[in-house]
């Protein structure tokens, strides 16, 4: 899978580093001082590297936890996210990572214990509030699990902190670490979903929707809290048919009464990220149609965004209770003037 693995010299002797390296006996090891030397430098091409990304093993310094933007919670006012990994195995054409990062190499921060310390500190500071911690912002939480053992490493931590909630955002069906552990009521496996035909075109390398539904159904049967994330909503001319079919397929497999949460999000990109993505993929239809810029964000034009949001909300609420429905706020969802 990886021909080249860059390793920060400071983490060469970490046990986790050695475990990961042992999985790639034929890879070439390239020591570096800090991962930014490779990852952050200018004059490199994300799309070229995506054809053959390298792995980078590093130590995360500084702020290991970041506050989530206001309004992006699923039941709490104290929301944080953390990233044990940068970049994703998958290649979704709408993904902001390719506009945000200069490199497509996958960075794994092997100092999981430091993340856990930061989480524990925040949980103490939360007192009686219920903090939510989201993973899967800069990567897919489960896709590279067989290499990182991230979820397996954090299971005991999640179990030891029942007063906090943890979301694993994923498109992967690699649910083994969850199958091998008793379900935790405070650990939500949240699956991102897009209509099947759209997913086939835009979500390169991602397991088909049906496979994701199988995984979700299995987890639900075992008692794991499962979440649905329809984010981003993707427009195309007959989107109503596609989304109606998707919701029907989802709720034919899953028990809506046993779902933890369902969220809905607009397709939105900060202006500079959109610009970078467009330069990388000028032929991508998704980036050429129906978009507008407002307040530094590029998203579908107001009337279109509102129409899609309204339609999908109404459809979803035919299946689920409003108590578990969390549509993401967006500046585009204002009535057209």
């Amino acid at each position, binding site marked *: 899978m990886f021909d080249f693995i860059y390793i920060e010299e400071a983490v060469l002797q970490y046990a986790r580093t050695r475990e990961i390296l042992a999985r790639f006996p034929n890879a070439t090891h*390239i020591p570096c001082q800090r991962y930014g*030397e*490779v990852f952050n430098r200018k*004059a490199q091409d994300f799309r070229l*590297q995506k054809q053959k990304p390298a792995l980078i093993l590093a130590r995360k310094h500084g702020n290991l936890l970041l506050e989530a933007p206001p309004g992006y919670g699923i039941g709490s006012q104290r929301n944080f996210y953390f990233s044990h990994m940068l970049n994703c195995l998958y290649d979704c054409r709408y993904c902001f990572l390719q506009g945000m990062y200069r490199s497509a190499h996958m960075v794994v921060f092997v100092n999981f214990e430091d993340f856990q310390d930061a989480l524990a500190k925040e949980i103490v500071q939360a007192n009686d509030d219920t903090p939510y911690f989201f993973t899967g912002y800069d990567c897919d939480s489960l896709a590279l699990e067989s290499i990182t053992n991230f979820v397996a490493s954090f299971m005991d931590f999640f179990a030891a902190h029942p007063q906090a909630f943890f979301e694993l955002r994923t498109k992967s069906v690699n649910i083994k670490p969850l199958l091998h552990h008793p379900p935790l009521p405070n650990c939500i496996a949240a699956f991102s979903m897009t209509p099947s035909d759209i997913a*086939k075109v835009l979500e390169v390398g991602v397991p088909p929707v049906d496979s994701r539904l199988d995984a979700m159904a299995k987890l639900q049967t075992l008692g794991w809290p499962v979440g649905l994330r329809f984010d981003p909503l993707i427009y195309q001319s007959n989107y109503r048919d596609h989304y109606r079919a998707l919701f029907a397929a989802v709720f034919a497999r899953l028990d809506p009464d046993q779902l933890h949460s369902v969220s809905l999000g607009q397709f939105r990109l900060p202006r500079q990220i959109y610009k970078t993505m467009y330069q990388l993929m000028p*032929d991508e239809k998704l980036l*050429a149609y129906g978009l507008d810029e407002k307040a530094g964000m590029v998203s579908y034009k107001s009337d279109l965004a509102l129409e899609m949001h309204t339609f999908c909300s109404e459809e979803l609420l035919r299946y689920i209770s409003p108590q578990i429905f969390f549509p993401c706020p967006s500046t585009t969802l204002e009535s057209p003037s």
Partner: protein
Amino acid sequence: MLNLIVATQTEARPLIAHFHLQAANLGSAFPLYHKDDLRLIISGIGKIAAAAATAYLFGLAPENLAAWLNVGIAGHGQAEIGQALLIHKIVEHSSGRTHYPAIAFAPACPTTTAITVERPEEEYPEPCAYEMEACGFWPTANLFSTAELVHCLKIVSDNKENSIKTLNKQRVEALIAQHLDLVENLVQLLSATAAQLAQRRHPPLHFDHFLKRWHFTATQRHQLQRLLAHWQALSPERSFTEDQLKDLHTGRDILSFLRHQLADLSLDLCSTSSI
């Protein structure tokens, strides 16, 4: 376009012959050879010479998405004589500065770290390639091109068992000649990648034609480029008829026309074209 940077005439000779390069008739500061989209420049030995030759070559025909390849001999602390090695890390011995070529393909030979030294190495303390150009060549070429298109290929000519002092011109030529297929494959691969990137930056269809036919302000030119690029992405098989264009007289008319055309398109992501 691919630019080959080679330190000496001896190392260059097999490459010039293999690629049928012709000497350029320029009063240039460096010997220069070329054919079609391939250029070779002989820089002289050392990182400063390599940097200068690289910048000089770029200046002759600035083309941001050219690929660059430095080919030459090197000593090595471990590898066998004649081994070809692609460089995955470059260290400047005098300063410790490092560079990392981005190898975004499956390399056809082993890779190694190159240590750029001021004088030929005779001790070979590390299991690395010891050479004299990479840390001048690579960062300079990287100013003009993306990291995935700038590479160094070294052929091991000396090591602990075979002193650099035993090298002569015939042996150096023979070492390079041994790996012409590898160089050729690299040239083709990198040239194709450069062409792929160049296509990405190509102005959209009809852009030049529209610019010639109507006047656009600078701002309107940007808008025109964006609208035509969107049209190309959404409806590449459709063109504009003369009937549609004949009554449009200004740049503003054209932009308005294109916006209406785009607004009338439907979007089907699942097929290869829009409706």
